[in-house]
């Protein structure tokens, strides 16, 4: 449910650092709380955000929720497949359901994120 190699935030986003980029999505818990996702509003490539800023919106049959930047940085990739298949966020939140990739502006921020165990504690 909560892969060991990922980092997590209080706002239920996950981060995976890969080739100098950080991939971002929402956690299993978040997708379960949201219910069936029907739309994901993505930022533009090149947009820059601070940690904690809202970078997009995820809309489900139950609710609409902001997506928050887990780290500061510039958007370098977006998952355009979500436009046609937003259900990937529900079906495969850590894989096909990734949302954006960012170029970090301050790698030390990674230390502020939680590991899998700490995140799961917050869910109890």
């Amino acid at each position, binding site marked *: 449910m909560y892969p060991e190699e990922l980092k997590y935030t209080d706002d239920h986003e996950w981060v995976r650092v890969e080739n100098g980029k950080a991939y971002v999505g929402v956690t299993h818990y978040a997708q379960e709380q949201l219910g*069936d*996702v*029907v*739309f994901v509003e993505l930022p533009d490539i090149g947009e820059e955000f601070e940690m904690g800023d809202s970078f997009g919106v995820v*809309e489900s*049959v*139950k*609710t*609409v929720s902001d997506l928050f930047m887990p780290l500061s940085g510039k958007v370098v990739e977006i998952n355009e497949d979500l436009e046609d298949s937003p*259900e990937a966020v529900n079906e495969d939140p850590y894989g096909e359901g990734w949302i954006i990739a960012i170029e970090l502006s301050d790698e030390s921020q990674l230390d502020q994120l939680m590991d899998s165990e700490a995140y799961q504690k917050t869910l109890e």
Partner: protein
Amino acid sequence: MKDRDLIFEKSRPGKKGYSLPELDVPQKQDLLPENLQRKNPAPLPEVAEGEVLRHYINLSQLNHSVDNGFYPLGSCTMKYNPKINEDVSRLPGFAELHPYQSEEMTQGALKLMAELEKYLCEIGGMDRVTLQPAAGAHGELAGLMLIRAYHRHRGQDHRKKIIIPDSGHGTNPASVTMCGYETVEIPSDDKGCIDLEALKEVLDDKVAGIMLTNPNTLGFYEENISEVCRLVHESGGLLYYDGANANAIMGYSRPGDMGFDILHFNLHKTFGTPHGGGGPGSGPVGVKDKLVPFLPNPMIEEEDGKYFLDYDRPQSIGRVRSFFGNFGVLVKAFTYIRMLGAEGLKQVSEDAVLNANYIMEKLAKSYHLKYHRNCMHEFVLSGKKQKDEHGVTTTDIVKNLLDHGIHPPTVYFPLIVEEAMMIEPTETESKETLDEFVAVMEKIAKMAEEDPEKLKEAPYTTPVRRLDEAGAARNPILKWEPKG
């Protein structure tokens, strides 16, 4: 099961249910440029008169409405709409009036609007009211535009932030964005009210105002409202009262006295005019003196017993709606207020609060309550217990209500309560109806324990069962196309 073909699917070439008299004037062919003229007649359905009638009567009977069942849809105040409101609004002098008729010919309508304005000022504790906005969210936007005009006039245009608590209505941040402002969210405290410390942290000279409902979305009266108003005013911001929950306080407390500068009322909630498909709505906005110059044009004024429309108001934000708002709805709300009178309105709120508390206490035995304390006109129940213990969600619970002829409460809102069910019975329901609702909810709770699988398949008796909501949102069919 009644047939649910579309009217287009009932069409057969050559059938018709009308007859028009012979054209006895010369036909003009060139009124429209050629490229705008139809090459073929519009493909309207061809059906007999009786078929049309049955089609729409049958469709209307598939609806749930407050006239055929209990409708505890939280925050929406689905109260009984007295039929005398309809009678009065259909008097020919109101129904057949044209908005372009002169002031001399519309004195009655102007007087009604002027008096309704006075009543709303009295109920809300405000100095003037515009009747133009056509819905609650429209009122919010108009109110925010007044806040902006006020700050601009004072050279304070740098104020761009609007504070909204995390229990706020979804329309609030949407209106803020529409107005070009920025939303700042603050958390609720452990009693479900505004966290004063969190408020202090975000108050600065960039704050344009705060939007609140009181009672708030959880159904609680903001006990620290005077302190909230003092703090916001001290920072130079204004206070906006979202009147969505005004049904709880009429005659007992007035937003103007609490310290609010602006409010909107939902006539279609608090003042018994139809909504939820029966609309249209109406969202009059009231303000304190300091904001009066900015109110939309025109305002209705009176001089020597004559009413007139005053457009000579140079600081006005201008019109926010064509003509004078949803006039028919204004007539209905006026009638509602006059029929009940001051004491009657007070009793409305008293009974609305009593009914909500009655249900809440009864249901607290079988369901989880995140905040268990006296509520106002509504409360937020949680399906958490059923979910944790039996894997049954709030969706499953409320779908079962449909099988008992009861409209579900507002669900999954506010977001700060897990598996939320927001229940607002309104004042117009009898004890027997409330008891029946409680009995049904208890039965469902029992079913969650004993036969959760059966519960997950509900509803069983409705014209359609569970709809594919995700499919409908992901691949909406927005236009009918002929088959084949």
